[in-house]
């Protein structure tokens, strides 16, 4: 099997996948950090509920997630119609929708990783910064965020990898449109469904693994660098 014998359609799927996964992590990074910080540092009634909600996409089958996204963010959906009317935003049949699906499914993983690294930041350092005149927000930006960076990075890459593999929610929400929403896993699925498609499927599977492992590896190296910088 020659794994480099990829056709143009397959290359398109790969490029699109990377693009979608990149936007998915880029878009969810901010909210994930915010939620992670809230879960790590605040105490409030309903915290366990928030924690549970964040975990939902991990627990619900992706196809169901996709259907819920369709209902909520579709052009006729509550939020979707509003976004469309006010911002001209349209997710249906669009790579942006695929990015949303990937982001939602990967969100819990990102939050978990970031939360753990925020929890590991010494509260003593925050207190020190406060006594030096930094408000909560500045403490967050100048102390917590830089120190939690390795965890943020880990969360980012994990979410990226998970986003690369996202299938069920994507196809249900935004359908399978070449060049728009046919990501690698969708192409892979298509291949598996056709008799004799195993070879193409195997090739795409290898590509998906290589991309994801590459991302994991790169993050490992980067976070070692970061750790070394903190140590030195």
């Amino acid at each position, binding site marked *: 099997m020659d794994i480099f014998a990829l056709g143009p359609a397959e290359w398109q799927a790969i490029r699109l996948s990377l693009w979608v996964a990149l936007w998915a992590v880029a878009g969810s990074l901010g909210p994930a950090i915010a939620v992670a910080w809230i879960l790590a540092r605040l105490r409030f009634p309903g915290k366990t509920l928030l924690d549970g909600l964040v975990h939902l996409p991990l627990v619900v089958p992706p196809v169901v997630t996709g259907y819920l996204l369709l209902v909520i963010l579709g052009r006729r959906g509550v939020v979707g119609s509003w976004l469309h009317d006010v911002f001209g935003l349209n997710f249906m049949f669009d790579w942006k929708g695929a990015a949303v699906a990937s982001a939602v499914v990967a969100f819990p993983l990102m939050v978990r990783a970031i939360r753990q690294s925020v929890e590991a930041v010494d509260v003593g350092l925050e*207190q020190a910064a406060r006594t030096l005149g930094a408000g909560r927000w500045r403490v967050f930006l100048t102390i917590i965020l830089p120190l939690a960076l390795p965890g943020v990075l880990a969360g980012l890459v994990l979410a990226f990898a998970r986003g690369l593999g996202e299938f069920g929610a994507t196809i249900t929400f935004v359908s399978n449109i070449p060049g728009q929403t046919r990501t690698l896993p969708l192409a892979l699925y298509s291949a598996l469904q056709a008799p004799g498609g195993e070879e193409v499927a195997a090739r795409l599977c290898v590509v998906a693994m290589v991309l994801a492992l590459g991302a994991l590896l790169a993050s490992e190296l980067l976070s070692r660098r970061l750790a070394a910088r903190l140590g030195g």
Partner: protein
Amino acid sequence: MFLAKLRKRLGELDLEVEFCRDAPGVTALFGPSGAGKTSVVGMLAGLTRPDAGRVELDGRALYDSATGVNLPPEKRRVGYVFQEGRLFPHLSVRANLRYGQRLTPPGQAWADFEQVVEMLGLEPLLRRRPGRLSGGEKQRVAIGRALLASPRLLLLDEPLASLDAQRKDEVLHYLGRLRGRMAIPVIYVSHQPEEIVALADAVVHIQAGRVTARDSLELFRRRLAAGEAHSAGGA
């Protein structure tokens, strides 16, 4: 002027102390482990909220349970040198020192970078990271960092406790230099009589959450000679 009346329940400990200082100089909080010294200092800095009382600095209330005033730490202008240093590990020594300085409201800054660096001998360390400093160097940087935020009150919580004798002498030397030049009140927490003798102008004895005695330095020396301070927790 600086004044503190604090009451706080801490688990088993019922903390209730009162002390003040109306001139620049060093007040030592002296007492055994668990007496509540760190808790007191934390309340002055605004890191812990007392149950009741009042903290006043230069005529401004930092905390007052009667009027509900409770300034957050960043509004208090109270410098705090922690027992463990708590330097920001991701910033160079220079960036650590500048951290609070840059946040000082214009017109309120009295600390000068060059001067503080010179006084604490920090010049050779400026480009290093905290991870590469010895314990004594760390504490000197922590002191410099607190000073450069131009505080109106400086809190030092056992800044020498984790140092060996040699480093202790080194930091003590710098603290001595500091003392002669500072125009703000300093609270110095310790259970080492030698440090207190070397630095303090007055001593507040704290035991089990209560002030058990107040000494001038002279009185404290005499108490020490009579072997009394030992029983209060010193060696």
